[in-house]
């Protein structure tokens, strides 16, 4: 009885060869030649597809330049970029946190971009001092509390949550998530390791329950009464508030005197071996402009990095806040220290 797989085995070999060779003669511009204005820009993005597609579609509609992109988690994306070296098709690297941008810059994966427009559109603490990357939207990570049980005057700042009065009332997300790693990294940059370790140990002692794997469950737990306070990214709260406007949870902004609100960025930088660096730069500049900033922030209810642009109305309704003035690159510089600290303190 002749079996299909047998014939298939022999037929498969030429197919495999064709697939392999299909990788040769790639269609990106040679790094030696000049990229023309209509050459596609290739983006490696850690920002999810459903968030970036509207932006890129708008850019292509406006300028006629096509954008090709692929998505992945940040570290695999950066390792891919580094491994490809000069054969990489990527012109732009787009991430969702500052720590990984810092890391990419450290590893030499990015090239400096000299642009007056970018420098005027994006505040200094949201971009790399050497122009290797620029923040495009701001993700604030702040305190939320149960409006039924907590009076906002009881809250001060992130350190304050380590206080004994919050014993058994604090809910936190897992330290595995990069947002918490960045938060602790910024605390280390601000207050030093010793103080931050005390803070984190205090947090762990105050936990009402096991750490959460996502911010949305955390907010819902507060609404259900499992705990009274927590720390989340504001856009998760925005989403929930949109669904359930009567949710008994509110946002608290730590005041400027206590260090301000911890912010992180979703940002991008031009890759070192970009074949179309000009195109990447143009895209970056466009993304920092008003129209794009509205889209960028509005899609996911984040804050625009460009201070001249207004945030989404639901988000603006929470009132203004003072972001921490430290350069967000510190989140990357201290990330490893932050992770070790959290391990020592037992913050899982």
């Amino acid at each position: 009885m002749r079996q299909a797989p047998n014939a298939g085995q022999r037929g498969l070999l030429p197919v495999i060869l064709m697939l392999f060779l299909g990788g040769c003669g790639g269609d990106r511009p040679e790094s030696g030649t000049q990229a023309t204005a209509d050459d596609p820009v290739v983006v490696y993005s850690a920002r999810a597809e459903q968030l970036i597609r509207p932006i890129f579609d708008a850019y292509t509609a406006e300028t006629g330049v096509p954008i090709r992109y692929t998505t992945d988690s940040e570290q695999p994306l950066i390792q891919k970029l580094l491994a490809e070296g000069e054969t990489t098709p990527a012109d732009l690297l787009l991430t969702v946190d500052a720590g990984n941008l810092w890391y990419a810059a450290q590893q030499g994966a990015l090239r400096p971009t000299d642009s007056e427009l970018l420098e005027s559109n994006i505040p200094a603490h949201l971009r790399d001092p050497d122009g290797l990357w620029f923040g495009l939207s701001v993700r604030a990570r702040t305190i939320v509390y149960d409006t039924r049980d907590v009076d906002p005057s009881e809250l001060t700042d992130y350190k304050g949550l380590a206080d004994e009065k919050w014993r058994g009332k604090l809910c936190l997300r897992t330290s595995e998530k990069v947002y918490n790693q960045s938060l602790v990294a910024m605390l280390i940059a601000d207050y030093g390791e010793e103080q931050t370790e005390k803070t984190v140990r205090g947090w762990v002692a105050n936990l009402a329950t096991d750490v959460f794997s996502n911010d949305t469950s955390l907010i819902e737990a507060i609404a259900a009464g499992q705990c009274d306070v927590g720390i989340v990214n504001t856009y998760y709260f925005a989403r929930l508030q949109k669904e359930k406007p009567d949710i008994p949870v509110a946002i608290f902004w730590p005041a400027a005197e206590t260090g301000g609100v911890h912010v992180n960025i979703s940002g991008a930088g031009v890759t070192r071996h970009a074949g179309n660096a000009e195109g990447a730069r143009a895209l970056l500049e466009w993304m920092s402009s008003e129209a794009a900033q509205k889209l960028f922030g509005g899609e996911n209810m984040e804050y625009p990095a460009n201070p001249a642009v207004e945030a989404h109305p639901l988000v603006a309704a929470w009132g203004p806040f003072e972001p921490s003035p430290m350069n967000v690159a510190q989140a990357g510089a201290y990330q490893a220290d932050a992770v070790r600290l959290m391990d020592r303190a037992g913050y899982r």
Partner: protein
Amino acid sequence: MSRAAAAGPGLVVWLVALIAALPLLVAVLSFFSPSAGVWPHLARYVLPQALANTIWLVAGVAFCTSILGVSLAWFVASCEFPGRRFFNWALLLPMAMPGYVLGFAFAALFEFTGPVQGAWREIAGASALFPGLGPRGASVATLSLVLYPYVYLIVREAFASQGIRGMEVARGFGYPPLQAFFKVSLPMARPWLVAGVSLAVMECLADFGTVKLFNYTTFTTAIYRAWYGLFSLQSALQLSLVLVGLVLMALLLERRLRGQSRYAPPGNTRQRRIALTRGRAAAVALYCTAILTIAFGLPMSLIVIWSLENFAAEFDTGYWQLAANTLMLSTGAASMITAVALLLGVIVRRVPSTLNRSLSRVATLGYAVPGTVLAVGFFVPVAWLSRMLNQYLGAATGTAVALQSGLAVIFLAYLARYLAVAHSPVESALQRIRPDVEEAARGLGVSGLRLLGRVHLPILRPAIFTALLLVFVDIMKELPITLMTRPFGWDTLAVKVFQLTTEGEWHRAALPALAIVLVGLLPVILLSRQRRRC
């Protein structure tokens, strides 16, 4: 056999082992780079807990999947009860569901803010504690329910081919049914059981999505912490090698324990089954229904509900392309990998030297390596090769060489990871082939590929379909390798689920998750029906 003909097969084994073990080689090389004091920190604060948790997880999953898989396989293969035909293929359905979907369904149902605890609080008061499973119990339960089909499918094969003759003989000697089962039928199926449980355990070791959901710290989560958190890919690679080393030791131990036993088929077995009494038949049917409901019915209804809620907002024409990509990648890769596993199995059987057997063992270790680490471990050397070629050839010919942008890389990376899955059922079935059948064929002048085609393949047909099915379903749900190595425009449904869940959009992710299950259903049903005795 001429020298050239003898060298040919050996070369194939070397080639396959090299491709499949490429990530491991990269991991070995990583030991030669410094890792900046990461190991002492991990060893003190992270690894002890991670190791203990992993051992609990593996023990729990091995135990539960054995019980589930063996019991269900025995009932379906050897007993007659109402609904047997339906359960024969239906019990495979949980395989079509990505593990984290089941985990998420459980979490959504049983967490503090979920309906179950909510109802409990209504009844018992606002501060009443609900007996929860905790991260360990939840992880073991979820992974067992998701992975039992591996054991079920492979062990069912064993029971179906050995028939009930052994049982009848034991009963004839006066043993009660349970004893007869444990003394005769189960030991005869031992290699299959071990093969199935090994797959389940390796899959569970490499799992990241489910344990992350429950915040259960395992060896694999420690690997990711070292890489993503401490920015140390080197440590991640080194830890992966340690993990693979442990798996290898366990597999070698099993081999040693199995000793020299051979497992030949008991000869002519007809398709007879044990008729159960009404009470017992009803109990068995109830048991199968319960498992199917919990492992498949429950998460399926949740994702159907969420999909309907989000359908208008989520669905667009892109879905057809995603489904097409998913199908093409899965069928192509599954066919290729099964063919390679078959070739490998037959060659090693023909020339069972220690070298061949070791190489073939090494080739299957990729399954235990955490997905993203394997992806990087495979991609980095390919990209390096591409750069070398680009430097020398590209300069000469003027074209850009980018090996990593073709489909070959993703297929080969899948091979590195999933060879174990195809190899397991094929190797177990090959053991069943009686040597005298092969001798007779050779005596008649049939050898080489013709021997493969006319003698081996018909006997191996069920195992081939099993292998195809397992690999197909695995690749359909696969994420890290697909993310990293896919060419532009080759997003799959699993990638879409990832995009949404990575931003916490779990309800929106139900639609592509449902699509994965639907795309997988047809092959699951088709292949599982095909395997019926020819």
